[in-house]
């Protein structure tokens, strides 16, 4: 089920109402059932996959608790193997087969292996990582075993963050799922505000930019530099608005019920360094890789050259997590490289004072890396890179290009203007929020009542008149 769908508009109030109406002892069961239904909206049979990992991890946790010595590690490995195994089969099998076929073809061997006809289960990368986080924390002794099976199952299946995060830690969420939460009008209002902003980001900014970006990146060799830059910058904001919008809806929907999920984005494009960027972008994932990959590899405790190797390895894996394609790996590798170069340039110090120059530099570097993230192939990515320096002398004359782009917009021209206006508002609000150390929905909540209500109505009208609905998935759903 998509958040920006009619089904969710019915699902959310029903589940929320039931949550507060039902006795506390039934809330976990209701949420578990609702979350299962939410997941089954996609492909019903796939619920078996997620319950398989839930059962394995639940028992692995309990066995780790009672075991000693090498057996504890063996049960942890069992849990990790189950989760990574499912991930490998459904997400990476065809990637591996494709690469194998390329190698076989190169050496003249035959026959080629057939690709598997598999649809990637929704949110697989997210809930497997969240599940592994639980067994790892239990193994480390930092999380008590959860004996209540429905509660543990809900930890994995909890619908607001099920399909695109944030990737939660058991220490944050398990106790919240257990604790009673009463109806609190201020908290509910906060949650709604956050959801409203999330829908705006998704439907007004991200989904409209997606149309423009898909035309440009669909045939990048056909466009000049100005349009390629427009498309690349648009993608940078498309993916930000899409993913952070989704996170806002998830966090808002959860906050309404009194369960606080971790913040996943903190105005990342206000970062003055790539290092800071990764502390503000997809925070739940970057901290997951830090805690479970980078630090176990030695983190900052090893020699400096080894640190750089660990950093590169972590980001290469991060890239692979995002997609079963070498372009994603290169994207991750570029980010790792930028971090290494930053550390080299700063003599190891990662503290940078905020500066406009730093912010622009970071935005340029991060956006350059996005080229590989968005391009379907290396050929397309290099076509973008090769094309960017050209065509600037005719900056007004790719009127042909602009006319072509305009032709394929389903919305009339006003939709284009409204989108970039909304994007401008998003950037300004993010800048304000970053400066004040608050979230945009908190800024909205602090406005005087008449201004706040005027903003609500303006937001609703913008959503209705300009929003793109229904047919655009969230980008991160493909993971």
């Amino acid at each position: 089920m998509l958040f920006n769908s009619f089904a969710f508009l019915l699902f959310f109030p029903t589940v929320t109402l039931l949550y507060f109406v039902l006795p506390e002892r039934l809330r976990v069961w209701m949420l578990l059932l609702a979350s299962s239904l939410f997941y089954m909206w996609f492909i019903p049979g796939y619920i078996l996959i997620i319950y398989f990992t839930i059962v394995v991890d639940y028992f692995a946790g309990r066995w780790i608790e009672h075991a000693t010595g090498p057996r504890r590690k063996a049960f942890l490995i069992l849990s990790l193997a189950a989760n990574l195994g499912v991930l490998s089969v459904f997400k990476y099998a065809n990637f591996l087969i494709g690469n194998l076929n390329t190698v076989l073809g190169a050496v003249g061997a035959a026959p080629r292996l057939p690709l598997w006809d598999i649809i990637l289960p929704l949110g697989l990368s997210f809930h497997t990582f969240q599940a592994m986080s639980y067994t790892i924390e239990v193994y480390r002794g930092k999380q008590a075993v959860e004996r209540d099976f429905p509660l543990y199952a809900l930890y994995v299946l909890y619908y607001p963050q099920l399909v695109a995060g944030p990737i939660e830690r058991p220490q944050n969420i398990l106790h919240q799922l257990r604790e009673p939460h009463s109806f609190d009008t201020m908290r509910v209002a906060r949650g709604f505000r956050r959801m409203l902003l999330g829908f705006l980001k998704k439907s007004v900014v991200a989904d409209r930019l997606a149309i423009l970006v898909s035309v440009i990146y669909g045939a990048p060799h056909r466009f000049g530099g100005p349009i390629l830059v427009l498309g690349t910058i648009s993608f940078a904001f498309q993916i930000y608005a899409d993913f952070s919008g989704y996170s806002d809806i998830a966090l808002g929907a959860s906050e309404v019920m009194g369960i606080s999920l971790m913040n996943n984005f903190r105005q990342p494009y206000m970062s003055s360094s790539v290092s800071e960027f990764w502390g503000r972008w997809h925070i739940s994932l970057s901290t997951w890789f830090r805690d479970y990959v980078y630090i176990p590899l030695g983190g900052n405790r090893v020699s400096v050259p080894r640190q750089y190797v660990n950093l590169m390895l972590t980001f290469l894996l991060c890239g692979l997590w995002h997609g079963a394609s070498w372009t994603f790996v290169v994207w991750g590798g570029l980010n790792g490289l930028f971090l290494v170069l930053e550390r080299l340039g700063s003599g190891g110090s990662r503290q940078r004072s905020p500066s406009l120059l730093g912010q622009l530099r970071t935005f340029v570097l991060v956006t350059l890396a996005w080229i590989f993230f968005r391009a379907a192939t290396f050929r397309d990515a290099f076509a973008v890179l090769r094309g960017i320096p050209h065509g600037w002398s005719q900056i007004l004359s790719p009127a042909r290009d602009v006319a072509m782009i305009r032709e394929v917009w389903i919305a009339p021209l006003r939709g284009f203007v409204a989108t970039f206006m909304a994007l401008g508002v998003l950037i300004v609000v993010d800048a304000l929020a970053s400066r004040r150390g608050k979230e945009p929905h908190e800024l909205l909540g602090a406005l005087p009542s008449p201004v706040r209500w005027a903003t609500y109505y303006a937001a609703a009208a913008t959503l209705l008149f300009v929003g793109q609905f229904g047919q655009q998935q969230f980008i991160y759903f493909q993971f």
Partner: protein
Amino acid sequence: MRSFWLRLLAFFLPVALLCSVPMAAMVISRELLPVDQLVEVHANGDPRALLLGSYTNAVKRYKVLTALHYEPSIVALGSSRALGFRSLFFQGAIHTFYNGGQTADRTWNLRRILRRLAPDTHLRALIVTLDQWWFNDRILENADQPGVDAQFDQANDVLGNMSAGMQSWHDWLSGVWSFQGLLRGAPNLGIEARMTGSGLRRDGSMLYGLDQLHPERRAHQEQLKQVLDSIEHGEGHYAFGDTVSEAYLQEVGRFLDDCRKLHLEVVGVLPPFAPTVERALGASAHHTYLRVLPEMLRKLFQARGYSLFDYTSCERLGCSDQAFVDGHHSGEGVYAKMLYAMAEETPWLSAKLDPTQRDLALHGPVDRIVITP
């Protein structure tokens, strides 16, 4: 708690009011019906009912479901320029021929719709109309445009329809449609159909309701002038181009290969332009891809044992500008003549046409926009 509910109401009430006019208009005109229900209503309701929405666009899915419902042996595919072929001229009418035009509006949508029609074991043949501008190498269309598959498969995009329906405020206030008009326009389905008397017949063909033009629709001459302006400035469908796109040709080739695998007969059609338009394009130094396109497509079809009929020039059929609704959508007279002309060289098509309708098709004026309602 009470104040919370009051505030919630204060927020949603204006939103509900904003949605009221679009909702009312689309409910009255049945434009919000789920597509599968629309298919049932259109198939089983008043046979004269036309279907054409103003703010919703479920045509792709509607046509797929309707084709599967009637199980015709021949289906016409293509853009809106395929909509003139009618089941009237076929033996067995709608159970022999269904017009699936307006679905495959780009080259790569041909395979999309074929994949969805393939389960129908009654299907034997396709009449495929190929718009000339599909093959302009300068026109950039992304096959992976987000949401296209959903247009074929999604039952209903309620939120999308509501959002599109907000345009109805402007149209209602400016008199494009009225509630009285919507009520009077029954049993047609959709605001456009109710207000203008234009829309898709049950057999999928288009009836242009010229007697009921709504104020926004321009006269034929003005539309022709706009097309000529587009040709001069290289805008829209008439973007300049000097090369035929290999990629789009290959996509059509792949489509024809899929038809062969399904043992389908296929006949291809390059539809006509109004004579004035065709002369303008021929004289243009900027649309030279059109000169080589027919031969390239003919080779593509012949390589697979299929025929292509090039009717780019309407003068072959003896028609004038009057035979066209605009510069590139011709009336039924032209389509009828094309159909019987193609049948003379296509035995399987000839066997399916109704000989008793031949006179109706060929002996009336070719410039008829509507042969019979």
